[in-house]
C-alpha cells in the first residue's frame, strides 16, 4: 500500500482555509495571523500524529503479546510433539519386538504342531500294535485253554492206565491165590503173579507221578491263564487309552492351529499398528517442524516489533518536537527556518511511516507463515488423534485376540498334559504287562519242564506194560504145563494179557495227547515271547512319546509366557497411545489457539497499517502547512 499518495477519504478537518490580503500591514498582520493559524494547524496535526503513533504502539503491544502467546503455543506444541514422538518411537520399538516375538511364537507353535502330529501318528501306530497284541493275547488265551484241555486229557488217559494197573493188580492177586492153592505145582505161577503185581504197582506209582505232574501243570496253566487275562486287560486298557490319546492330540493340534491362525492375523494387525505409529511419527515430525517455522516467524515478528516500537517512539518524539515548534512558531520571526525544521521533521516522520509500513508487510507475511504452520499443526494433530484412536482400537482387538490365543494355547497344553498322563498310564500298564508276561513265561517254562517229565514217566509205563504182556505169556505157558491144576491160572493170565493190550491201545492215545500238549506249549511260548518282546519295545516307544509330549508342553509354556508378556506390553502400548492421543489433542488445542492469535495479530497488523497510513496523511498535511509557511 502506497501511503504517500493522498487518500481521498482522508480527513482534513483541521486544515484551515486561507484568505490573501494586499496591504503590508494587513499583510503583516495577516502574515502573523496566518502564521499563528498554521502553527495551530501544525500543533493540532502533531497531536494527531502523536495520537496515531501512540495508537500504533498499543497495537504493536497487542501484537507483541499475541506473538508471545503464539510462541508459547509453538513451544508447547513442539514439546508435546517431541514428547509424543519419543513415546511413539518407544511404542514402535515395542511393536517391532512384539512382531519378532510373534513370528518366533508362530514358528515354535508350528514346530509343536508338527511334533504333536508326529506323536499322534506314533500313538495311532502304537494303539494299532496294542490292538494287534490284544488280539494275539486273546488267541493265546484260547490256546492256553487248549493246553489245559490237553493236560486234562492226559490226566484222564493216565487215570485209565492207572485203572488198568489196578485191574492188573487184582488179577495178579487172584493169580497169586491160584498159585498158593496149587502149592508145589503153583510155584512157577507164584513167581509170575508176584512179578505181575510188582509191575502193576510200578505202573500205578508212575501213573501217580504223572497225575501229580498233571495237577501241577494244571495249576501252572491256571496261573498262566490268569496272568494272560491280566495281560489282556492291560493291553486292552492301553489300546483304549491310545484311542483317547488320539482324541486329545487332535484337540491339542486344532487348538494350536487356531492359536497360530489368530496369531498370524494378529501379526498383520500389528503391522497395521506399526504403520499407524510410523504415520504418527511423521505427523509429530511435521508438527515439530511447523512449530519451528512458526517459532522463526514469531521471532521475526518479535524483532520487527522491537524496531517498530523504537521507530514509533521516534515518531512520538518527532510529533512532540513538532508541537514545540508549533508553539515557537506562534511568535516566531523566522518562519522560513521553522518551516524548514517542520519540513525536516515531516520528512523524518514519513520515513517512520514507510519503515513501519514495510515492516508490517513483513509481519503480515510472517503471520501468514504462522497461520499456515498452525493449520498444518491442526491438520497433523487431528490426523494423529485419529491414528492414536485407531491404534487404541487395534490394541483392544489385539488384546481380545491375544486372550483368545492364550485360551487355545492353554487348552492345547491341558490336552497335552492329558496325553502325558495317559501315556504314563499306558507305560504303567505295559510295564505291568511285561512283568506279568515274564512271570507267565517262567510258568510256561515250568509247564514245559513238567510236560517233559510226563513224557519220561510215560515211557516207563509203556515199558512196564510191555513187561506185563511178556509175563502174562509166560504165565499162560506155565499154566499149560501144569495141566489140570493150571486151569485157573491160565484164565487169569489170559485176562492179564488182554488188559495189557487195552493199556497199550490207551497209551497210543496218551502219546498223541502229549504230543499235542507239547505242540501247544511251543506255539504259545513262541507267540508269547514275541508279544512280550514287542511290549518291551513298546516301553521304549512310550518313553520317546512321553518325552515328545513333555517337550511340546514346555514349548507351549514358552509361547504362553510370550503371550502373557504380550498382554502386559499391550497395556503399556495402550498407555503410550493414550499419552500420544492426549499430546495430539493438546497440540491441536494449542494450534487452534495460535490460529486465533494469528487472526488477532492480523487484525492488529491491519490496524497498525491503517493507523500508520492515517499518520502519513497527517504528515502530508504537515508538509502542506510547512509549504504554506515558507510561501507566506
Amino acid at each position: 500500500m502506497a501511503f504517500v499518495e493522498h487518500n481521498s477519504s482522508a480527513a482534513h478537518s483541521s486544515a484551515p482555509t486561507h484568505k490573501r490580503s494586499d496591504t503590508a500591514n494587513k499583510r503583516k498582520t495577516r502574515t502573523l495571523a496566518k502564521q499563528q493559524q498554521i502553527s495551530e494547524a501544525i500543533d493540532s496535526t502533531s497531536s494527531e500524529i502523536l495520537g496515531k503513533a501512540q495508537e500504533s504502539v498499543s497495537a504493536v503491544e497487542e501484537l507483541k503479546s499475541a506473538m508471545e502467546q503464539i510462541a508459547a503455543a509453538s513451544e508447547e506444541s513442539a514439546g508435546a510433539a517431541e514428547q509424543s514422538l519419543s513415546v511413539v518411537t518407544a511404542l514402535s520399538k515395542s511393536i517391532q519386538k512384539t512382531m519378532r516375538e510373534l513370528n518366533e511364537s508362530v514358528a515354535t507353535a508350528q514346530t509343536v504342531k508338527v511334533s504333536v502330529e508326529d506323536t499322534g501318528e506314533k500313538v495311532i501306530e502304537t494303539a494299532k500294535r496294542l490292538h494287534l497284541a490284544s488280539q494275539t493275547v486273546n488267541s493265546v488265551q484260547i490256546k492256553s485253554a487248549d493246553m489245559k484241555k490237553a493236560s486234562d486229557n492226559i490226566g484222564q488217559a493216565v487215570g485209565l492206565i492207572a485203572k488198568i494197573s489196578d485191574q492188573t493188580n487184582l488179577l495178579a492177586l487172584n493169580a497169586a491165590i491160584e498159585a498158593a492153592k496149587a502149592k508145589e505145582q503153583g510155584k512157577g505161577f507164584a513167581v509170575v503173579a508176584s512179578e505181575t503185581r510188582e509191575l502193576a504197582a510200578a505202573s500205578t506209582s508212575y501213573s501217580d507221578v504223572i497225575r501229580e505232574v498233571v495237577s501241577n501243570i494244571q495249576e501252572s496253566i491256571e496261573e498262566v491263564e490268569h496272568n494272560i487275562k491280566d495281560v489282556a486287560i492291560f493291553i486292552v486298557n492301553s489300546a483304549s487309552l491310545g484311542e483317547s490319546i488320539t482324541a486329545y492330540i487332535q484337540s491339542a493340534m486344532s487348538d494350536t492351529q487356531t492359536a497360530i491362525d489368530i496369531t498370524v492375523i494378529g501379526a498383520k494387525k500389528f503391522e497395521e499398528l506399526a504403520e499407524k505409529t510410523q504415520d504418527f511419527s511423521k505427523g509429530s515430525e511435521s508438527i515439530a517442524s511447523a512449530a519451528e517455522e512458526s517459532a522463526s516467524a514469531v521471532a521475526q515478528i518479535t524483532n520487527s516489533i522491537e524496531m517498530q516500537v523504537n521507530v514509533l517512539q521516534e515518531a512520538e518524539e518527532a510529533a512532540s518536537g513538532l508541537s514545540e515548534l508549533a508553539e515557537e512558531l506562534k511568535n516566531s520571526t523566522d518562519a522560513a527556518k521553522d518551516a524548514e525544521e517542520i519540513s525536516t521533521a515531516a520528512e523524518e516522520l514519513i520515513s517512520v511511516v514507510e519503515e513501519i509500513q514495510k515492516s508490517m508487510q513483513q509481519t503480515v507475511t510472517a503471520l501468514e507463515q504462522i497461520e499456515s504452520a498452525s493449520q498444518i499443526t491442526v491438520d497433523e494433530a487431528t490426523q494423529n488423534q485419529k491414528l492414536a484412536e485407531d491404534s487404541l482400537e487395534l490394541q483392544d482387538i489385539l488384546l481380545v485376540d491375544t486372550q483368545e490365543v492364550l485360551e487355545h494355547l492353554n487348552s492345547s497344553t491341558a490336552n497335552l498334559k492329558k496325553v502325558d498322563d495317559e501315556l504314563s498310564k499306558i507305560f504303567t500298564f505295559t510295564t505291568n504287562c511285561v512283568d506279568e508276561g515274564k512271570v507267565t513265561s517262567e510258568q510256561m517254562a515250568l509247564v514245559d519242564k513238567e510236560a517233559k517229565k510226563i513224557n519220561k514217566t510215560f515211557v516207563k509205563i509203556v515199558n512196564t506194560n510191555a513187561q506185563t504182556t511178556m509175563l502174562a505169556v509166560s504165565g499162560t505157558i506155565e499154566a499149560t504145563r501144569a495141566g489140570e491144576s493150571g486151569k485157573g491160572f491160565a484164565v487169569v493170565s489170559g485176562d492179564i494179557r488182554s488188559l495189557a493190550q487195552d493199556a497199550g491201545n490207551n497209551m497210543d492215545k496218551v502219546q498223541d495227547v502229549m504230543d499235542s500238549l507239547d505242540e501247544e506249549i511251543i506255539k504259545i511260548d513262541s507267540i508269547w515271547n514275541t508279544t512280550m518282546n514287542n511290549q518291551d519295545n513298546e516301553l521304549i516307544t512310550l518313553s520317546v512319546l512321553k518325552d515328545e509330549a513333555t517337550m511340546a508342553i514346555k514349548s507351549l509354556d514358552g509361547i504362553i509366557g510370550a503371550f502373557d508378556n504380550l498382554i502386559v506390553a499391550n497395556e503399556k502400548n495402550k498407555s503410550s497411545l493414550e499419552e500420544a492421543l492426549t499430546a495430539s489433542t493438546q497440540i491441536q488445542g494449542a494450534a487452534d489457539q495460535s490460529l486465533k492469535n494469528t487472526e488477532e495479530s492480523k487484525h492488529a497488523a491491519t490496524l497498525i497499517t491503517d493507523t500508520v497510513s492515517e499518520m502519513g496523511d497527517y504528515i502530508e498535511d504537515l508538509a502542506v502547512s510547512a509549504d504554506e509557511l515558507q510561501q507566506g
Partner: protein
Amino acid sequence: MEYLLLVVKEKYFAINVESIIEILRPKDITKIPEVPEYILGVMNIRGHIGTVVSLRKMMHYKEMAEELQEFIAEIKKGHEDWVRELEESVNQEKDFTKTLDPHACPLGHWLDEVMTCLKCDDTFMDKIKREINPHHKHLHEKGRTVIDIALEDKEKAVGVIRTEIHEHYNVVINNLEALNGDIDLWTNSIQRIVAFTTKKGDTLNILVDDVIDIISITDEQKQKLAQVEEGEIVQFDCAIELEDGKIATIINDINI
C-alpha cells in the same frame, strides 16, 4: 501159610488163601427182601448167582455209603458255621478262627484223597473235580478276600459274603448232596468182593473195603498172639502183628 490181607474200616483182616476162590469188583448187586442187614443181595459171578455179604455189617460197622452220607451232613454244617463265623467276624470285627486253606478243612482232606485215588470211578471223580472242588476252593479263597476287603469297607465285605460266598457255599452243598445218588459209583470202584468158601462148603461173596496183599503167616506168629473173641457170625482165629506193626485179625470162618 498164605493169607489174603484185607481192610474194613481201616482195620485189617486175614483169610487163608485155601478158602478163597477169587477177588472181584462189586457190580450190580441185586437186593433181596427180608434178609439180615449183612446180606447185601445177589450178584452175577461168571454166570452163577452169588450171595453178597458185608463184612462191615457183620462187624456191626456202618457201610461206607452211610459214612459218606453222614460226612456230607457234617460238612454241610461245618461250612454253614464257617460262613456264619466269617460274617460275624466282619460285622463284629473279630478274628476269624476257621481255616482259609481249602485243603485244611475235612472236606478239603476228603476231596484231595478222592482226587488222588487212582481207583475212583471216573464219573464220580469228574463230579468232585468239576462241581465241588473248584467251588470249595473259591469258597475258602473268597474268605481271604472278604477279610482283606473288610479292613477297608465292612459293608462291601458283607456284600461279598452275601453274594459270592453264599453262591459258592450253595453250589458246594447242593452238589455234595447230589453226590448221595452216586455213592455206589464210588464204593463200587474202591471196594472189593472176596469169593470165600465156608467150612460148610458154601460160597460167600464178602464185600470188603479193599484187599491189600497176600502174606505168609507162620504158626509161630500165630502162637505169639492172643486169641480174640468169637464174633456172632464171623469166627476169628487170632490176631497177629504185621511187619509194619499193624494188627490183623485172622478170620477162620463165616457162619450165616
